């Protein structure tokens, strides 16, 4: 990405460096799930005031280690110590009493109740007559004030956007002045401004002596806040390195166990392909007004915008999953009268949702079925599904998209996040969609898988299709897109073409000079 | 008792009617009551409900009827003891209660019930038991092995069985009841009866305590190809039971209380009570009829709509 160029390996840290007793420690822990060894004899320790990054590819075991440290699970072997004392099977309650606060990777909020209630869950303030609701609300308000986030604590969580929910989750971890704060991919759903909010908070807490364990696939964040990084691979700790002393290439090499290849995807300033998608004056109540743009065959079209700027709504409206309140959508030159989901599907529009786990995959079904689901007809022979046709079709796609799976009939839930995402994209290649709308396809996937996804997008575009790419990680738009549209204040405001797409101009455009927040 | 508000001469009369369950018998009662009202050229609104054999539902309906001040209540009580409070409540509110078919315990009848159109279940079972004994004697079976398809979630059925078994064993002391299983609804009855025939291959007869049980029993005998070996004695006439009885190969006798007749008698008793006429006799006997093969055709003719 944007970091150092040299390839010098950094020296491993001296583990015996005297810093007093670690706040949290894992000694020789292993965790075995049926059929998977998620952790294999891991030793790990984190000290007060330290910001430790935990790095590794999807499925390396990062979240598993975190679950052990937070008492959610007890290890199959080895032990966890918090503040020098064994956690045993004290569970979440004991870990939390020892000062561990965790923001889990999978959103763990209760949708039907308020934000304030979610923060208080499991430790409601007691008043004279049962729970003291006022204290609960006050405490929640104070927490978000400290965090600098604008969240209505009386709102029901179900009504919040994914990003707001993520901030609530972070707020919950922060509220009790923890001694060890664990953040498992806290920023994967966030855009730049909110990311800064989180990073600032982490820095502030670290300065106060709180230990922070931080998981992210975004290397630039790691560089901003972490002192040291523990790299994991295949359930083992490979090495703990100093961030300052190691370049990104080296860290990636540690993560994937091989030399990273220099990869960049060719971008093109202009395409002469046919206009596949043409949106005119589209209104999507309540967020978007008068959106107009065109997308051509062979193009990777990025859409940038702040959190809540309506990118998701735009894609949903185009795919027919959200009624447009005005304007027209045309596919390959012909205006679609009633853009329902099935109509758009038959016209060759496919969308991958931003919430991969919640709305992307059907966990119990095989990888192959998750792929062919978009078009059963193509793998049917005489009205019945043909196992042979399914196998042929999915094997080809798995190869093309480099989906790492021994057996495509295994449930998709056994795949790592990045590979799940590839399977969801494959779904639309199977349906032979001409217009692919990818909403945050790189969220929560490791660096390597990200690069693969950029290349998939390029390869798909090269076959005469249009790829629309939405990402909250603004820095990846310049890497992958031929053209980037910027959504702001309910409409498309600016357009950039390769090679004039760069991080600073996109950020500038997304935030608009006047209202720009001061965080960066 | 206090003359009633909602009743009255000339105006519309409101009468509450409670049915015990949804067997055809109660359809007959309904028709009988209705016919009687029409014949009387009175304008009567019936406020009706089915207690489905559930005392709590009955209690709630009785309460509703009582508090809405109907002129009289015609009911088939769910339980001799369990239904007492509901009947008492109505009676204490000055509403005449007329039982048909089933009623509350004798004490309570004395105190709270105006009239009871009764087909005595003991006699109901007993008549059939006698007929069964006659049949077996004629067939030369002195120690019949009997199976029973019962409806014992209703108390009245236990009485029926008592009457039946006493009459049969009195005549044929060698009688044994080798199986007794629930089957009030015809679909349970048919598979239970089939299984009973499997478990007891030497069965000589089956007693069906209610309509569904009867149908189930003779259907099972046909299915198992035991025609001529197993005789069925049943209760409650319906069109298809009449047809089977006319055939005569399996179903030998059916005992029945006409719902229509019971309904008519109950309505008459209700009118008397509303008019303030004291009945001579609290218990009004409902005719209990025994039907044999020869009578079946006649029943079908006189009951073209199938209502018993």
């Amino acid at each position, binding site marked *: 990405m944007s970091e150092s160029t040299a390839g010098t390996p950094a020296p491993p840290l001296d583990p015996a460096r005297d810093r007093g007793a670690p706040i949290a420690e894992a000694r020789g822990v292993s965790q075995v799930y049926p059929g998977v060894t998620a952790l294999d004899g891991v030793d790990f320790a984190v000290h007060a005031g330290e910001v430790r990054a935990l790095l590794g590819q999807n499925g390396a075991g990062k979240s598993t280690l975190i679950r052990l440290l*937070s008492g*959610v699970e007890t290890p199959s072997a080895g032990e966890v110590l918090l503040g020098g004392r064994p956690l045993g099977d004290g*569970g*979440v*309650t004991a870990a939390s009493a020892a000062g561990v606060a965790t923001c889990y990777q999978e959103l*763990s909020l*209760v*949708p*039907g*109740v308020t934000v304030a*209630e979610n923060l208080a*869950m*499991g430790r*409601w303030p007691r008043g004279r*007559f*049962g*729970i003291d609701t006022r204290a609960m609300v006050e405490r929640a308000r104070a927490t978000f004030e400290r965090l600098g986030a604008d969240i209505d604590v009386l*709102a029901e969580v179900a*009504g919040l956007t994914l990003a707001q929910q993520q901030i609530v989750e972070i707020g919950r971890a922060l509220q009790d002045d923890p001694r060890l704060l664990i953040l498992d991919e806290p920023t994967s759903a966030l855009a730049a401004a909110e990311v800064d909010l989180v990073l600032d908070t982490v820095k502030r807490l670290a300065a106060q002596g709180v230990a922070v364990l931080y998981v992210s696939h975004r290397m630039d964040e790691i560089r901003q806040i972490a002192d040291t990084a523990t790299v994991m691979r295949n359930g083992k700790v490979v090495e703990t390195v100093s961030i300052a002393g190691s370049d990104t290439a080296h860290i990636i090499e540690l993560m994937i166990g091989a030399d990273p290849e220099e990869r960049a995807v060719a971008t093109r300033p202009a395409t002469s392909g046919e206009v596949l998608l043409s949106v005119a004056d589209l209104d999507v109540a309540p*967020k978007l007004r008068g959106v107009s743009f065109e997308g051509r065959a062979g193009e990777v079209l990025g859409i940038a915008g702040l959190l*809540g700027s309506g990118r998701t709504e735009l894609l*949903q409206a185009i795919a027919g*999953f959200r009624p447009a309140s005005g304007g027209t959508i045309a596919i390959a030159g012909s205006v679609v009268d009633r853009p329902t989901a099935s109509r758009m599907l038959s016209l060759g529009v496919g969308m991958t949702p931003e919430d991969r786990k919640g709305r992307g995959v059907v966990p119990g079904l095989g990888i192959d079925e998750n792929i062919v689901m978009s078009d059963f007809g193509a793998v049917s022979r005489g009205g019945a599904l043909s196992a042979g046709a399914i196998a042929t079709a999915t094997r080809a796609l798995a190869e093309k998209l480099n989906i790492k799976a021994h057996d495509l009939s295994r449930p998709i839930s056994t795949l790592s996040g990045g590979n799940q995402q590839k399977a969801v994209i494959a779904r639309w290649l199977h349906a032979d969609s001409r217009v692919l709308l990818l909403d945050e396809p790189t969220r929560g996937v490791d660096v390597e898988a990200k690069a693969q996804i950029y290349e998939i997008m390029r390869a798909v575009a090269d076959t005469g299709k249009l790829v629309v790419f939405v990402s909250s990680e603004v820095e990846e738009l310049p890497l992958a897109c031929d053209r980037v549209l910027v959504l702001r*204040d*309910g*409409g*498309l*405001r*600016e*357009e*950039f073409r390769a090679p004039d797409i760069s991080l600073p101009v996109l950020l500038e455009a997304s935030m608009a000079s006047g209202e720009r927040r001061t965080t960066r | 008792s206090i003359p009633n508000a*909602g009743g009255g001469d000339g105006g519309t009369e*409101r009468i509450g009617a409670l049915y015990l369950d949804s067997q055809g018998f109660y359809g007959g009662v309904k028709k009988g009551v209705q016919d009687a009202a029409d014949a009387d050229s009175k304008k009567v*609104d*019936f*406020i*009706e409900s*089915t207690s*489905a*054999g559930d*005392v*709590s539902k009955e*209690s*709630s*309906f009785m*309460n*509703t009827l*009582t*508090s*809405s001040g109907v002129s009289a209540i015609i009911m088939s009580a*769910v339980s*001799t*003891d*369990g239904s007492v*409070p509901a009947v008492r409540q109505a009676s204490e509110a000055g509403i005449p209660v007329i039982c048909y078919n089933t009623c509350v315990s004798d004490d309570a009848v004395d105190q709270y019930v105006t009239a009871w159109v009764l087909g005595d279940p003991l006699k109901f079972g007993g008549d059939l038991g006698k007929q069964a004994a006659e049949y077996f004697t004629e067939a030369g079976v002195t120690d019949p092995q009997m199976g029973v398809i019962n409806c*014992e*979630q*209703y*108390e009245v059925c*236990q009485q029926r069985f008592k009457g039946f078994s006493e009459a049969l064993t009195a005549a044929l002391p060698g009688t044994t009841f080798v199986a007794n299983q629930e089957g009030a609804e015809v679909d349970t009855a048919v598979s239970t009866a089939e299984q009973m025939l499997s478990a007891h291959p030497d069965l000589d007869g089956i007693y069906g305590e209610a309509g569904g049980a009867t149908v189930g029993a003779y259907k099972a005998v046909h299915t198992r190809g035991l025609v001529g070996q197993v005789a069925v004695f049943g209760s409650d006439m319906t069109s298809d039971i009449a047809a089977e009885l006319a055939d005569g190969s399996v179903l030998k006798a059916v005992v029945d209380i006409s719902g229509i007749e019971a309904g008519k008698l109950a309505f008459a008793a209700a009118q008397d009570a509303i008019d303030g006429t004291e009945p001579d006799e609290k218990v009004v006997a409902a005719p209990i009829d025994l039907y044999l093969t020869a009578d079946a055709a006649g029943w079908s003719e006189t009951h073209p709509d199938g209502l018993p």
Partner: protein
Amino acid sequence: MTTTLDPTTAPTRPGGAPRDGAVGRVRDTFRRNTTLVNIVGLLVAIVLLYLYLMFNAVGFFTVANQSGLLRDAALIGIAATGMTLVIIAGEIDVSTGPAVALSSVIVAVAMTQWGLPALLAILLTLVVGAGWGALAGVLRARFLVPSFIATLGLWSVLRGLGQFGTDALPVPLPIDEPVMPFLTGTIVGVPTPAVVMIVAFLVFAFVARKTAFGRSVFAIGGNAAAARLAGIKVARVRIVLFAIMGMLGALSGVLLAARLGSGNAGAANGLEFDVIAAVVIGGTAMSGGRGSLVGTFLGVIFITLIGNGLVLLGVDSFLQSVVRGVIIVLAVLLNVTLSRKRGSLEEN
């Protein structure tokens, strides 16, 4: 190559800012709180029903009928308080009818055959009810048997036990005994069971909103995994929940025995469906995580009113079942439609 696309369109209002003023606050509350919409809807429906029945059903608006209505409501309502929590927790209990019936038998047997004093017999019945409820809870929480199946099994077992133990005959209560008549009497004019029901609603409304247990129930129903991560003892809450439900069934059984003067193993047939329908009509989501006791209370009144009105209007007894079915579905349909977020993608 930067081009500004459309600098004119007016910016929308910044999100998240609370609206000012009382009106705004009420509107906000409404928007936020979908259950409130349901409650108002139900209230309107109940008022309309009342008006209609007052003018069309003879004897409806009499003290006697209103108090009878309350008695009927109590039978559904007491169990419905617990059922609300059960459904909020994402579970279901279909064993209510047999539980009530068997409890009425137990209290009667305890008094007549074992000679226990009334209060002791009642206590015993409540404990036994809580016991079989807890059993269902353990099956659900520890052995992961779906609650529908666990309570369906219980349904079968309890109904059978009651009928087997009594030969399906009623067990009369002793006559010269003061407690049971009190339970079927009135307190300042209000039928005792109705008073018990109202107390139960107040208690459970408090429990649901103001106790850790109640909030845990909401949390578990909304997201059980999240509740566990927050340190809530999910299994324990579930077990307690079903135990409470069992106890409430037993309480209804005691009141039923008092009303009928006997314990009846065949009584309260299908009660569970009325109870569940009342809860769902009251706006509690069958998928869990959402619901209110106020809504349930109105649901109970609504469903009792329908039953009472159908009888008083002289509707054919078989048709009553048809009308009830239609009305229940319509009520829930209305409810779902009212509370559905406009333009929401969510479908499930």
